[in-house]
C-alpha cells in the first residue's frame, strides 16, 4: 500500500511539473512581450530593455522557468530597488494590468467559485443518481424513456444557451427570480439562494445527464450479475438485494467520475460565471482573456490543472478503498 501511495504521489508530481513546464513554455513562446504592456505609449527601446532586465525577461528560458517554479514555493520579487514588488509564497505570477498578484486575485474570488461548484455538484449528484435509479427500476417504461429524452436534451444544450434562456424565462418574463446581485448569505439567505439557483442548474445539467445514464447502465448491468441471481435464489428480500448487492457496485464508478468532474468544474464555471456575472475564478479568467492579461490566464490554467491532477489522485485512492475488487498493484 505504501509503495502504491509513493508511486502515485511521484507520478502526480511529475505530471504537475510537466503541466507547469508546458504552460510556461506556451506562454513564453507565444505571448506578446509583457514589457510593451508595462511600458505603455511613448516607449523607447532602452526603456523596454530596462524592464526586461528588471523582470529577468532577458534571461534564458530555463532560468526564467526556475524563477517561476521557486516562486511557487518560496515566493519571489519583481523588479529591483524602489519599484520592487513582493510576491508571497504560492506566487502564480503578477498582473501588471491590475497591479495585483495573481494568487491574491484568485483567493479573493475563491468563495464565489466554491459556492457555485459545491452547489452544482450536490445538485447533479442527487439528480443524476435519482434519475438513473428511477430509469433502471422502470426500465423500458414511460418514465425511463422520458428521462432518457431529458438526459439527451441536458447533454446537448450548450450551457450558455440554457443560461440565457433560463434568465430570460425566469427573471425577465415570469419574474419568479430576482435579478442576480451580490448579497451575503448571512444577511439575506433567500436572495442568496435565488441568486445561485440558476448558476447551479446550468452548471449541473450536463453532468446530471451523464450521471443518470451511467447510473442506469450500471444498475441494470449489476442486477444481471450472478451473485444477484444467487441472492434472489436464496430468497433475500428485494430491498435487501438492492441495498446490499446492487447499489454498491453500481455506484462505485460514480465516485470515480465525480471526483474528476468536480475537479474539472473550473472549465464549466468559466462560462456560467461569465453569463451570470458572478465574480468567481471563471469570470476572472474570461475577463483576463478579453484584456489579454497573460499572467492571470496562466495562473488560472495552472490552478485548474492542479485541481484535475489532484482530483484524479484522490479518486484513485478512494477507488481502492471503496472497491475491494481493485487490488493494489493491479491498478494498471
Amino acid at each position, binding site marked *: 500500500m505504501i509503495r502504491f501511495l509513493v508511486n502515485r504521489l511521484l507520478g502526480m508530481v511529475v*505530471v504537475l511539473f*510537466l*503541466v507547469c513546464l508546458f*504552460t510556461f513554455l*506556451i*506562454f513564453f513562446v*507565444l*505571448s506578446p512581450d509583457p514589457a510593451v504592456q508595462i511600458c505603455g505609449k511613448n516607449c523607447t527601446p532602452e526603456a523596454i530593455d530596462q524592464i526586461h532586465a528588471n523582470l529577468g525577461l532577458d534571461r534564458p528560458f530555463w532560468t526564467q522557468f526556475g524563477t517561476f517554479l521557486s516562486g511557487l514555493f518560496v515566493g519571489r520579487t519583481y523588479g529591483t530597488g524602489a519599484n520592487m514588488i513582493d510576491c508571497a509564497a504560492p506566487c502564480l505570477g503578477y498582473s501588471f494590468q491590475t497591479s495585483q498578484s495573481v494568487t491574491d486575485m484568485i483567493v479573493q474570488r475563491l468563495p464565489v467559485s466554491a459556492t457555485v461548484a459545491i452547489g452544482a455538484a450536490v445538485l447533479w449528484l442527487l439528480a443524476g443518481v435519482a434519475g438513473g435509479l428511477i430509469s433502471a427500476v422502470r426500465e423500458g417504461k414511460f418514465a425511463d424513456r422520458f428521462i432518457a429524452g431529458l438526459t*439527451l*436534451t441536458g*447533454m*446537448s*444544450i*450548450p*450551457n*450558455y*444557451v440554457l443560461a*440565457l*434562456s433560463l*434568465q*430570460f424565462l425566469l427573471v*425577465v418574463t415570469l419574474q419568479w427570480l430576482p435579478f442576480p446581485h451580490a448579497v451575503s448569505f448571512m444577511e439575506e439567505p433567500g436572495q442568496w439562494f435565488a441568486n445561485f439557483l440558476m448558476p447551479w442548474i446550468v452548471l449541473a445539467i*450536463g*453532468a446530471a445527464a*451523464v450521471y443518470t*445514464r*451511467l447510473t442506469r*447502465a*450500471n444498475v441494470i*448491468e449489476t442486477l444481471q450479475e450472478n451473485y444477484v441471481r444467487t441472492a434472489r435464489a436464496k430468497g433475500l428480500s428485494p430491498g435487501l438485494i438492492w441495498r446490499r448487492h446492487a447499489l454498491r457496485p453500481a455506484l462505485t*464508478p460514480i465516485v470515480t*467520475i465525480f471526483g*474528476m*468532474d468536480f475537479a*474539472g468544474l*473550473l*472549465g*464549466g464555471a*468559466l*462560462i456560467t460565471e*461569465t*453569463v451570470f456575472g458572478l465574480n468567481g475564478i471563471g469570470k476572472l*479568467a*474570461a475577463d483576463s*482573456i*478579453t484584456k*489579454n492579461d*497573460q499572467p492571470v*490566464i*496562466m495562473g*488560472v*490554467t495552472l490552478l*485548474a*490543472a492542479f*485541481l*484535475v*491532477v489532484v482530483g*484524479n489522485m484522490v479518486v484513485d485512492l478512494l477507488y481502492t478503498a471503496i472497491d475491494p475488487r481493485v487490488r493494489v498493484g493491479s491498478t494498471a
Partner: protein
Amino acid sequence: MTFTPTELEVEGVTGGGPGSDPASASPPPSGRRLVRAFLRDRVAVACSVYVLIVILMAFTAPLLVKLSGWGPLEFDQSAVDPNLGGIPLGPAGGMGAEHWFGVEPGNGRDIFARIVYGARVSMTIALSATLLTSVLGVVFGLLAGYFGGRVDMVVSRVMEFLMAFPALIFMIAVLSALPAENRQLLLVVVISFFGWPYLARIVRGQTMSLKEREFVEAAKASGATSAQIIFKEILPNLASTIIVMTTLAVPGYVGTEAGLSFLGVGVVPPTPSWGQMIASSVPWYAVDPAYFLIPGAFLFLLVLSFTVLGDRIRKLAESGEVAA
C-alpha cells in the same frame, strides 16, 4: 457538458461501449439490415434530416444569401431603431419578409445570412477536427496496441498526460496566446490535440485483444508483414468502434467550437459563428430574445441531433454484433 470529450469516456467506461466487447471481432453485420433498422427509427431519421439541412445550408450559403437579399456582413441601419439604442424595428427582433430571421440589434446585420454562414464555420471546424482526431486516435491506438512494449508506454504516458489536462481551460489559454490569423485552422488543431487520446485509448484496448486472436496468428504464420496485419486484419474489425466513437465526438466538437467562440478565443469577428453570435447577444437578451434564441436553437438542435445519432448508431452496432 458539451465541451469536454469526457462524455465519450463515460460512454466507453460503462461497458456498453464496443470497446470492452471481445465479440466485436465477429464479422461486421450486413449493412442493408442496419440501414433498414435505422430507417424505422423516426427520431434518428429526423435527426439525420436536420443534420443534412445544416450541411446543405453550409454548402449553399452564397446562394441562400442571394435569395434572401442580405449578406452576412452588410449593415442595415434602416432595420434598427436608433432612438431605442438600436433595437430592431418590428416584432420578434425584426423578423419579416425583408429579414427572415430578423436583424442584429445595433448594426442591423441580417441574422439569416449569419446563421447560414455560421453553419459553414461550425460544420467545417467540427468535421475537420473529427477527421483529424480519428486519424490520430486510430494511428496511435493501433501503434500502441499492436507493438506494445516501449511504443505503448510512450503513447500511453502521453495520452494520460493529455487527459489529465483541463482541456477547455488549456485550449482557451493556448488560443488566447496565439495570434488571431488562421483561427479556424488553429481551432481544429487545438481541439484535435486534446481530443485524440479518447479514441486512441479504446482502439488500443481493442487492438491488444484482437492481435491475440487466431486469424492474426494465421496471418502471421502465412508470412504477413506487420503493416498487412494491421491494415488488412485488425483495422477492418475496428470499423464499427471507430464509426461510433467519431459520431459521438462530433457534437462535442460542435459545442467546443461554439463555446470557444462564445468566450472570444474562437472564430474572430466579423466571420460569423453560432457561438460567437450567442456571445454578442448576451447584452441584448432581455430586450431582444430572438437574437440569442435563433442561433441557440440551431446550435442546440445540431448538438442534439449528432448526440442522438451517435447513440442510435452505437446501439445498432452493438445489437448487430450480438446478433451476427
